[in-house]
């Protein structure tokens, strides 16, 4: 059956679904060991510090910006300068690029956490249920997963967003969340499947625990590292999807995002006019954020999976 084949989505460079057997969680004394390896792992430290730095920037930035992100200041196509707070210059229309940039960065985090979080929750519910229960429930959920997996969800998002007159950042995150869970559900189903037949699960079942208790207290903790990595990948993926949607002109209608900054710069011929301060920062920020998330993910993989540790 094709569904038993582990699959690797493009968005998961260090695809954890390739691990055939999820490692059983280490006893509590393992926490110290994990921390020891985590702090020595350069990839993890790099990814984590980069993400934290960007997060800090996204939180603090809007407070130190001296102009509103959409306000017209009357200064046109200003190159980056220290005068008047235009640290990243202005757009062709006289808006402060720095203010737009930090607002967009903040939205990227919101979309990533919300969209990735929703996708992770749906993926967990469906993956755990399908893996734990066999028979008709599994068949049905599997069918659902396969159908959503085959539908080009990006195109679907296009149609839905195009028909919405007023679009908000929350709505965008929710839509991204409910369309990007299938690969996670599929990978979790396979993982759950391999855990269900283990002795400790049988033991729990014999002791009369309910299915929900077994899933959340016995099975899920044994893949906590895996779940965390899955969330990171969904987080990064959601940011990229949102940027693409925004660039097509389907972004939130009452604010500005990094994707919209790029759209507006292309639309206003910023490339031909060499207004590089307008179109370079937004893409660079997305690249840095998503890239550091991916690198962090590889680092985590190496920390949790002893086979991958570089000796």
């Amino acid at each position: 059956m094709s569904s038993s084949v582990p699959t690797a989505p493009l968005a998961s460079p260090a695809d954890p679904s390739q691990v055939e057997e999820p490692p059983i969680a280490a006893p509590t004394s393992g926490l110290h060991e994990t921390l020891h390896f985590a702090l020595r792992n350069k990839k993890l430290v790099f990814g984590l510090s980069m993400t934290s730095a960007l997060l800090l920037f996204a939180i603090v930035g809007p407070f130190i910006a001296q102009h509103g992100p959409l306000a017209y200041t009357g200064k046109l196509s200003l190159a980056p300068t220290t005068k008047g707070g235009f640290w990243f210059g202005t757009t062709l229309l006289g808006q402060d690029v720095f203010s737009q940039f930090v607002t967009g960065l903040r939205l990227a985090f919101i979309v990533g956490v919300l969209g990735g979080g929703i996708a992770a929750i749906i993926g967990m519910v469906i993956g755990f249920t399908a893996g734990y229960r066999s028979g008709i429930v599994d068949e049905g959920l599997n069918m659902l997963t396969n159908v959503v997996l085959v539908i080009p969800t990006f195109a679907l998002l296009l149609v839905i967003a195009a028909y919405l007159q007023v679009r908000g950042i929350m709505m965008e995150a929710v839509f991204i969340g409910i369309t990007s869970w299938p690969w996670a559900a599929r990978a979790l189903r396979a993982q759950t499947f391999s855990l269900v037949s283990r002795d400790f699960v049988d033991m729990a079942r014999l002791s009369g625990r309910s299915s929900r208790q077994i899933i959340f207290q016995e099975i899920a903790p044994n893949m906590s590292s895996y779940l965390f990595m899955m969330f990171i990948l969904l987080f990064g993926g959601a940011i990229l999807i949102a940027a693409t949607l925004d660039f097509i002109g389907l972004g939130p209608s009452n604010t500005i995002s990094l994707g919209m900054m790029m759209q507006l710069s292309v639309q206003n011929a910023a490339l031909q006019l060499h207004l590089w301060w307008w179109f370079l920062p937004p893409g660079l920020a997305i690249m840095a954020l998503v890239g550091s998330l991916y690198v962090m993910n590889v680092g985590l993989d190496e920390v949790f999976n002893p086979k991958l540790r570089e000796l």
Partner: protein
Amino acid sequence: MGRYFLRKLVIYAVTFVVAVTIDWAIPHLMPGNPVLTLVGRIQIQDPRVAQALYHHYMRAFNLDLPIWKQYWYFWVSLFHGDLGTSILQFPTPVMTIIVHALPYTLALLVPAIVLSWYAGNKFGALAARRPVLDNSLLPFGYTLTATPYMWLGILLVWVLAVTWHLFPVGFAYDPTAQRAFTWPFISSLAYHWFLPFLSLFLVSFGGWAIGMRNMIIYELESDYAHYLEALGAPQRLIRRYAFRNAMLPQITGLALALGAIIGGALVTEIVFSYPGLGYQIYRAITNEDYFVIQGIFLFIIIGVLIANFIVDIVYLIVDPRTRIGMEGGR
């Protein structure tokens, strides 16, 4: 084998029905009336004329029928290849717009997908467990996969086209060129095609290279690889075995990645003003030309389903276990 295909076909059929139903339902669920937009666009002063025109269009688009009949007619016209009429480019049928745009999108997508997959797998396999190569490929690959498609396009246009004048800024061919099957025109096409292709190729390449690298490392750590090593098999042989096994998830991954790559192609076309489906959808969205958006969505669905089916067949050929498993053997 028959059961395998039957199962796949059922999934694809369900997917198609679901997609078409969603495509039909969205405009009915959303607030706003596209016919009002259409009538509003024509800007008629006399309200009676506007009223008459409104009813005419309601009838023309079957919007005055009961809802189940509308759904049924949607399917009927779909199978007649009728996807409605463009509002922006009235009265051009949506089908005509799509048929004209499709070759450009395919010319970008197919080579970009195939070549990036091939090159990515080769490079990824080469880099795995080879520290010198790995240390340069890994950061490079992660940077590329994390890059938004349109931003790489923007960067390429700005550096190579606007600043250095090495390539054209956009469009599919030189507007002064004669559209004919001649060398100057074909070279103009190729010249304009290269940058959008490169930008798509590079982003996908990073993902495939990293995926393959990780997969090979897992394979090299597996029991059969260690066993071969213990037997004293040459590294090349072990790597070849690992490559073949690592290939399978990459093939499945290809089917999964299609949606993302298509999204990437759409925005790349917008950056380069390349007249494919992405450019058309952008125009349609900025002008609220809904039938075009819906029509292109259906075309993308059909394309993805066909591509998935091809991947399935390839998988069947490449992995003997699928064949045997499907025939009920052990």
